[in-house]
């Protein structure tokens, strides 16, 4: 009997630990904060594209960068139009800041490279960045958004992000083993 109590206590404690760990990796966001993350995440990729357009001479990389710049700008435009319509002001938050500080580091790494090494680093980063953003949108932003139109916009963006990832992986193959 006493043993049972101990097991119960251990189980409850374990559950509490898991719950708090889960709460830490999955931030709770309000709609204004989700809107901020959405705009920041897209703007970061527009900025990466600007670096590529300035530094790369590879036709496939330049074309890909132009698509990233155009598409992510189009998504920002849609997001801004929606929050304006809803009267929501994007609100800065820990996740937006985390994305921005990560982007600053990456920008420095990219700026230090040139030629083929730059092309490879840019595309490798596009692959991993799109994976991160897809997972953030699917696992955090969509489930947590309260407004139906905001949720719908985020859902509509996912296929675009996935096509970008496929496209980046296609270009990445060019640099494989180089």
């Amino acid at each position, binding site marked *: 009997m006493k043993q049972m109590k101990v097991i119960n206590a251990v189980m409850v404690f374990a559950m509490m630990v898991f719950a708090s760990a889960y709460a830490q990796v999955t931030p709770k966001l309000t709609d204004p904060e989700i809107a901020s993350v959405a705009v920041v995440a897209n703007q970061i990729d527009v900025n990466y594209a600007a670096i590529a357009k300035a530094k790369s001479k590879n036709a496939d990389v330049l074309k890909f960068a132009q*698509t990233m710049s*155009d*598409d992510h700008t*189009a*998504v920002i435009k*849609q997001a801004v139009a929606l929050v304006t319509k809803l009267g929501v002001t994007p609100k800065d938050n820990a996740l937006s800041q985390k994305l921005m500080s990560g982007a600053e580091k990456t920008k420095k790494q990219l700026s230090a490279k040139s030629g083929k090494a730059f092309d490879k680093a840019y595309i490798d980063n596009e692959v991993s960045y799109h994976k991160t953003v897809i997972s953030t949108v699917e696992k955090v932003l969509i489930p947590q958004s309260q407004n139906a139109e905001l949720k719908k916009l985020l859902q*509509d*963006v996912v*296929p*675009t992000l*996935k*096509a*970008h990832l*496929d*496209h980046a992986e*296609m270009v990445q193959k060019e640099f494989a083993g180089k």
Partner: protein
Amino acid sequence: MNKKLRRRTIIVVYIFLVFVLNSCSTPEERGRLPGDTATDASSTTSAHKVYSIEIKDMKFDPGEITVHKGDTVVWVNHDMVTHCVTEENTKAWTSSNIAAGNSWKMVVQSGADYFCAIHQVMKGKILVE
């Protein structure tokens, strides 16, 4: 619901559907191929058909279409980003940019594998029978 009201509802729904279908069957023309001089008047009086391909969620739907030579295919871009329709092997023809909400049509002369040159993973196929 009484009979009269039900009948009236059916009529209203019918008028609405006719209106919607009409507005969908006259897509805005965005571009034309260099050799594509056939006028709309002649194609509507002939037996040629018009097929629609929806560009939605980064896919061509249907991805594969079978038509007869002289039929028209209309691509409608429902996405929020710009797409295009380009012959894949020799770039024999292209729509150029089809902005969000716009469409482009082509009179089909021969079968083709095509893709979106902006998002090269988007592919489609036209078969001519």
